[in-house]
């Protein structure tokens, strides 16, 4: 039997490509060139599977890919999937839950400490040669230990952050979630509150919800106004869950103390985004899961999901809506 043909749209490690090639015939994008949608449509017209990061899977693409059976995301977020369209064309979509949780939780603790303790500011000034004796108080920050962390969206990554924050840093954990998370309540003494209460009581507000129609811009003007003036806002999920204009406004008006952001409404973000000018904002280029080990594991997980679906129509990686 001939091997199914699949499309590798983003670079994967060699051993992952080798694994895929044992089961599939591979077409790869030429990674020396920027991606163009027309070129992609040309390729997908006769493939059965796609492995990719962030490629928009919608009516437009699906209508040109008659043989397609599965799209495998090398990411945990899957807001690039048009779920209804995929259902209509009977396409399975997979993501990489679990693999990256600890690495993303590290990034989040890094953002919390770096924004609260103003490490980036201090380092930049020091490198510029601006350190006079006795001016350490310029960089006085906010204590992390024993402060209050509010987590909006208590899933697996939220739990990994709660473990670090509560067991490690003795922080009080408040959370809001569609459903109660009893494991987090038992293990990390997490306190279930309304979203408004979480916003108004926390020293650090962390948004961890996946992006959906309901969560689009759900952090807006009203929500930032509810936050404490000495509180920091942290986002490492998806940029569009935050109304970035409202965030900029809140920072300009000193309604909050600062922010730590790994994600933006548009990525890469525009060079004239006012957030890039702000001392009290830590900006990262969407590196939540970016360690070699985790990215390798994610690529392997996605490759296995792709092959599993093509061979057995089964995988732990299939997203809930398409199971």
């Amino acid at each position, binding site marked *: 039997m001939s091997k199914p043909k699949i499309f590798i749209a983003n670079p994967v490690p060699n051993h992952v490509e080798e694994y895929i090639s044992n089961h599939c015939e591979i077409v790869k994008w030429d990674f020396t060139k920027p991606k163009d949608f027309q070129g992609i449509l040309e390729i997908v017209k006769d493939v059965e599977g796609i492995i990719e990061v962030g490629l928009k899977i919608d009516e437009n693409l699906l209508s040109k890919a008659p043989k397609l059976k599965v799209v495998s995301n090398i990411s945990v977020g899957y807001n690039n999937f048009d779920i209804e369209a995929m259902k209509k064309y009977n396409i399975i979509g997979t993501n990489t839950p679990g693999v990256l949780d600890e690495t993303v939780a*590290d990034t989040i603790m890094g953002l919390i400490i770096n924004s609260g303790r103003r*490490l980036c500011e201090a380092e930049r000034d020091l490198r510029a040669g601006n*350190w006079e004796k006795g001016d350490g108080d310029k960089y006085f920050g906010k*204590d992390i230990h024993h402060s209050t962390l509010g987590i909006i969206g208590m899933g697996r990554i939220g739990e990994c952050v709660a473990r670090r924050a509560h067991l490690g840093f003795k922080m009080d954990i408040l959370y809001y979630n569609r459903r109660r998370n009893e494991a987090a309540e038992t293990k990390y003494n997490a306190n279930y509150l309304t979203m408004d209460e979480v916003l108004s009581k926390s020293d650090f507000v962390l948004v961890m919800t996946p992006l959906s129609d309901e969560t689009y811009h759900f952090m807006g003007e009203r929500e930032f106004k509810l936050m404490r003036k000495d509180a920091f806002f942290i986002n490492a999920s998806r940029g569009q869950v935050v109304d970035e204009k409202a965030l900029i406004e809140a920072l300009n008006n000193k309604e909050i103390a600062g922010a730590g952001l790994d994600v933006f409404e548009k990525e890469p973000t525009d060079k004239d985004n006012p957030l890039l000018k702000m001392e009290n904002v830590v900006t990262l280029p969407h590196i939540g899961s970016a360690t070699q080990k985790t990215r390798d594991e994610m690529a392997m997980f996605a490759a296995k999901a792709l092959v599993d679906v093509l061979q057995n129509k089964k995988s732990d990686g299939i997203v809930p809506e398409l199971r």
Partner: protein
Amino acid sequence: MSKPKALLAYPVAKEIQEYLHEHFDLKTLDFTNPQKYEDILEKITDVEGAVVLGTPIDKTLLEYGKKLKVISNITVGYNNFDIDAMIEKGVVGTHSPGVLDNTVADYVIGLMIATGRKITQLNQFVKNGQWERMDNSYLFGKDMTGSTLGIIGMGRIGEMVAKRCSLGFDMKVIYNNRSRKPNIEESMNVQYVEFDQLLKTSDYVVILTPLTESTQHILSYREFSLMKKDSILINVSRGPVVDERALIDALERGLILGAGLDVYEQEPIHKDNPLLKMDNVITTPHIAAGTEKTMNDLAWNAAKSLVSFLVDNKAINVIPEMK
């Protein structure tokens, strides 16, 4: 009865200054200008005690301060004390153990993540408008979870770092210390190893020894050559425990991956120090204990030690060498 005379040689919060005024005939320096040693000498001549931060308490100062009985250091470190000279003159030194431990431990973790995940560098990268595409593998960093932390000097701060890393980040934690700490080994699943073994097997080496003759340059050429090529050094204790020339050499030759430094052999650091030019080094200006709350707690502690000694005739927070 008249109040004893005392000197406040470092600016503290208003309430603390008022508290000192209540108990002493208090002099202060002119805090609008940088601290000058000569000004302190001039004002120390007729006081029985002083609250200081970083002022060298040496033979010269003790010669001027004929009536001195006690010096209260605002910080926990007291390498500004010439201990032998103080003992000879019968001047007691106090410090503030315990107060800043959690705040410093937070900063250690901040430096570990910032160095491992290149946070200050990537913040600058985004802010400079250099973020032009996704998927840059040079943005990749090092995982905390699953890696090994080696702590040299397991005192109170070490214990708090161990707690964060072992219970919070699920890291393997090993340590070396003059004496074993069975309680910590058990409660935090921490393992005692020989000094060289620690250097050879740790992904992150955190040095937390106080500065003494035996710990000066405890990390030098030999030690860096033992460390793993992908390891990271963190120093927030005192600069001279590390041989800075050997560290620079190790970083330049790739003997270690990077360093997160809050302290230096010379402070403020010399503007030409090569460390300030290195991408794989995070440099901050001795602010590991720098939060509003902790500095306030430290100053309260020093003020109370002074009052206790001179008003209540009770010595508290005396440095171990003078107990």
